């Protein structure tokens, strides 16, 4: 499978001078080791055991465990070519983690470029920082900027759900800090196995507990997200974490090491033996075949240490004490040093002995690979070092100066007085292998597409329809998720304007003006299994719509692409199509992808997960006081359905829940329509014409009506006749179809005329389908069925507690 390596990217400019390394910093540069030597360390090894550059030159034929580190033979060979000798064990450690799929994006890179290519001038308007940095940054006006990003922590969360999910939150929050921003909110996109599988409760309790523990301890509101249960995620749950940060324009920081002589400083928690090789081994292979020895120790996080780190970093930024900064995540020091050096003046010298250790017996290779949490690396001007250290001392954050920026073009790392790493940092961090993996149209997909849900029997009698509605409401994926979200603190910091179960989260940025942002995420793995291109566009469309229904204007996208093994050509085809879908969709909507994450190898055995490209959309709202809530609160408001309904039941929640069916083609996403709809909703919000708005998605109109009723316990009378006449569909289709571009809104009677005028002016289809009724305590769908609010609530709220225990709060 590795033969398709695109060798051409070992280009001339990356070929180093093989003679240079050995002489630059001789092994006698040991003057600095005394300071960190920490002579009393119990397990200190004799210097002879260090695999230095000189040693590597002298012993070219030494066998190296590159395969166990996840490198393919040709990749190892390429490292030898780049260096002109065999790598030292420290260099091997660095290359192996940095060239892993997780860090190098070697299989996805050729496709991800589209996000940077399919760009219009309008998409760049608000973009302050795009792809490639720790997180994208968007100008939201009034001198404020917002940064956001989604990342996956899937594999660790299966091995150790609590700590895996907790450190997932910690990692994405550090990405946000490293942009110079104050983190202000988090969100999570979760996929678990079947709700009734015996192992699911273990993972659910651990993951939800871990997220709530870390986020609540940090004091960040969790705005919600999404949770789905499906057997395809049984052995490979997905835990994606999104974080949002806020900064003033002038506070923007980037990860680069410029300025020869500037100090390279490591601060935060001490480096220990946690998660060694996690990035490389976990992301490069399934953890089933290697047995327990291949399973690395997961990391344990300390949210209180991270909280201190946030405040410490913000004070450092405020005092302008930092030139460049980078968080330490996967691949730890290997990643931070090589990336900082590559993005800056190109050279760096590090005394690895200066790393403060939690466990003094760690080897140099382990220190380079350690994924200990709550660490940051900064580049500091020498004259500002004292002030920098004063700040970290104030916050009780341990700090050590590791080395300095050089102009040698080499990343040189010394350990016990010997040079153990001497590489061109770009060969580690930037010019990693790029694979053009084989792509193959899935053999099974045509048959799947032909098996349309339109042929499934649809209920016509009122009682049967009611039965299906209740089945959907109680189904694992549509049931109330309070069991999860009640464990999260959603109001801490006091700026939360909307949060789960609203369609999108909304947070105030400026307390004076009310300026804020809205954020929503979506991915429908079932749609993507049917058609990854359309499925990805649908995820984008839905996240976009979810932001729009809050009254905000969508402006930017972040994504987290969860797929099976890239070595499976059919999975690679799914990935290719999904990226095309998102990038085409973004161009059409004219909102840029600002960054994101790819997670491959999500499979149980050789069964890949459904493609799950989670799309997050960020929107801007001028004043959070003008937000549109999602449920009905008042009596006698007219209920309008925006958009039209087609027979689009393929891949729907109805087909899945009632018939156990997945087949056909997903609904069509008309993005121009979505744009019109967002404009309409924004206009209506500006004029405060709308009492509530709720997006139609999984479960169609039926689920949207039930959710609007249950949000505040206000009933409604609804009639479907006009929809049936106008759109030519039957009642079941009107209720369960998942056609896009649809929203239900409630409008106070006095604003009726203006609202309808707005719809007409913008040419958006609108139908009055009902009226809210605060006294009936029922949802009545005329001529079909009536369900009491209690009945609906019981169905919705009973499901998760049945499997996981009582809902708190």
């Amino acid at each position, binding site marked *: 499978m590795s033969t398709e390596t695109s060798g051409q990217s070992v280009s001339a400019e990356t070929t180093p001078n093989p003679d240079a390394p050995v002489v630059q910093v001789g092994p006698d540069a040991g003057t600095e080791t005394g300071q960190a030597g920490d002579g009393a360390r119990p397990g200190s090894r004799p210097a002879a055991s260090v695999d230095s550059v000189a040693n590597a030159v002298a012993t070219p034929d030494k066998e190296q465990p590159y395969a166990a580190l996840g490198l393919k033979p040709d990749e190892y060979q390429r490292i030898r070519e780049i260096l002109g000798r065999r790598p030292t064990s420290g260099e091997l450690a660095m290359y192996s983690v940095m060239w892993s799929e997780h860090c190098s994006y070697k299989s996805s890179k050729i496709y991800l470029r589209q996000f940077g290519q399919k760009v219009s001038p309008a998409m760049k308007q608000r973009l302050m920082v795009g792809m490639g940095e720790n997180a994208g940054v968007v100008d939201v006006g009034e001198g404020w900027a917002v940064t956001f990003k989604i990342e996956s922590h899937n594999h660790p969360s299966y*091995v*150790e759900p609590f*700590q895996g999910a907790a450190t997932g939150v910690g990692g994405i929050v550090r990405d946000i800090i490293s942009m110079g921003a104050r983190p202000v909110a988090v969100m999570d996109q979760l996929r678990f196995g079947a709700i009734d599988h015996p192992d699911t409760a273990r993972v659910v309790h651990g993951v939800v507990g871990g997220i709530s523990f870390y986020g609540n301890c940090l004091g960040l509101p969790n705005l919600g997200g999404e949770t789905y249960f499906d057997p395809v995620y049984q052995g490979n749950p997905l835990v994606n974490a999104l974080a949002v940060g806020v900064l003033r324009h002038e506070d923007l920081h980037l990860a680069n090491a410029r300025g020869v002589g500037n100090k390279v400083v490591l601060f935060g*928690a001490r480096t*220990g*033996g*946690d998660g*060694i090789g996690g990035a490389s081994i976990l992301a490069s292979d399934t953890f089933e075949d290697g047995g327990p020895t291949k*399973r690395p*120790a*997961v*990391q*344990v*996080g*300390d949210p*209180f*240490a991270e909280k201190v780190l946030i405040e410490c970093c913000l004070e450092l930024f405020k005092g302008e004490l930092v030139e460049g900064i980078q968080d330490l995540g996967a691949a730890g020091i290997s990643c931070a040093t090589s990336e900082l050096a590559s993005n800056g003046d190109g050279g760096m010298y590090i005394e690895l002995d200066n790393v403060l250790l*939690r*466990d003094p017996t760690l080897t140099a290779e382990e220190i380079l690979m350690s994924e*200990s*949490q709550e660490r940051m690396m900064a580049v500091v001007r020498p004259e500002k070092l004292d002030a920098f250290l004063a700040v970290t001392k104030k916050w*009780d954050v341990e700090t050590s100066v590791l080395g300095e920026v050089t102009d040698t073009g080499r990343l040189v790392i010394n350990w016990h007085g010997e040079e153990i790493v001497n590489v061109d940092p770009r060969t580690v961090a930037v010019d990693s292998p790029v694979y053009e993996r084989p792509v193959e149209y899935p053999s099974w997909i045509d048959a799947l597409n032909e098996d349309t849900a339109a042929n499934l029997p649809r209920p016509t009698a009122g009682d049967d329809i009611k039965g299906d509605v209740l089945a959907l409401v109680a189904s694992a994926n549509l049931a109330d998720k309070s069991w999860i979200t009640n464990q999260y603190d959603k109001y801490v910091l006091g700026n939360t304007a909307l949060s789960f179960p609203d369609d999108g989260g909304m947070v105030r940025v400026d307390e004076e003006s009310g300026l804020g942002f809205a954020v929503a995420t979506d991915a429908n793995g079932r749609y993507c299994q049917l058609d990854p291109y359309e499925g990805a566009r649908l995820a984008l469309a839905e996240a976009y719509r979810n932001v729009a229904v809050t009254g905000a204007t969508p402006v930017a996208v972040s994504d987290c692409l969860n797929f099976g093994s890239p070595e499976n050509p059919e999975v690679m085809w799914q990935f290719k199509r999904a990226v095309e879908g998102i990038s085409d969709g973004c161009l059409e909507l004219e909102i840029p992808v600002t960054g994101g994450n790819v997670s491959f190898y999500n499979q149980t055995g050789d069964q890949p997960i459904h493609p799950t490209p989670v799309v997050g959309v960020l929107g801007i709202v001028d004043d959070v006081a003008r937000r549109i809530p999602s449920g009905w609160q008042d009596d006698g408001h007219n209920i309008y359905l925006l958009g039209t309904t087609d027979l689009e039941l393929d891949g729907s929640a109805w087909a899945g829940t009632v018939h156990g069916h997945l087949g056909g083609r997903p609904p069509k996403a008309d993005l121009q329509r979505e744009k019109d709809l967002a404009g309409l909703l924004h206009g209506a919000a500006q004029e405060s014409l709308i009492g509530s708005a709720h997006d139609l998605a999984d479960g169609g109109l039926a689920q949207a009506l039930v959710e609007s009723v249950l949000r505040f316990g206000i009933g409604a009378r609804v009639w479907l006749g006009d929809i049936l006449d106008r759109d030519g569909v039957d009642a079941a289709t009107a209720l369960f179809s998942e056609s896009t571009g649809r929203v239900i809104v409630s409008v106070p009677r006095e604003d009726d005329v203006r609202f309808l005028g707005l719809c007409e002016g913008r040419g958006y289809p609108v139908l009055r389908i009902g009226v809210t009724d605060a006294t009936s305590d029922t949802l009545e769908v005329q001529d079909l069925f009536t369900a009491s609010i209690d009945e609906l609530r019981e169905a919705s709220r009973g499901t998760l507690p049945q499997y996981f225990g009582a809902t708190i709060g």
Partner: protein
Amino acid sequence: MPTIVVEVMPKAEILDPQGKAVAGALERLGKSAFTGVRIGKRFELTTDGPADEALLTEVRELAVEMLSNSVIEDVVSVSVLDESPAGETH
């Protein structure tokens, strides 16, 4: 009534935030003799029957599979508490 004691500690290479917090507190309180603190768990399992080898074997399995999280913790000991005459415990 024999009591079987199971002791569980976080794995050596794993961060122990509790221990770190206590170590920090000790230092702030002027107790500077300690270079580290790690905090584990102790389970006391009482039984009416004899704490024989069969039961101990079962407890050892329990300790690894249920009382500890083998991903981040080690079972450091499984032992039978000296039986003390009634009334002397406190």
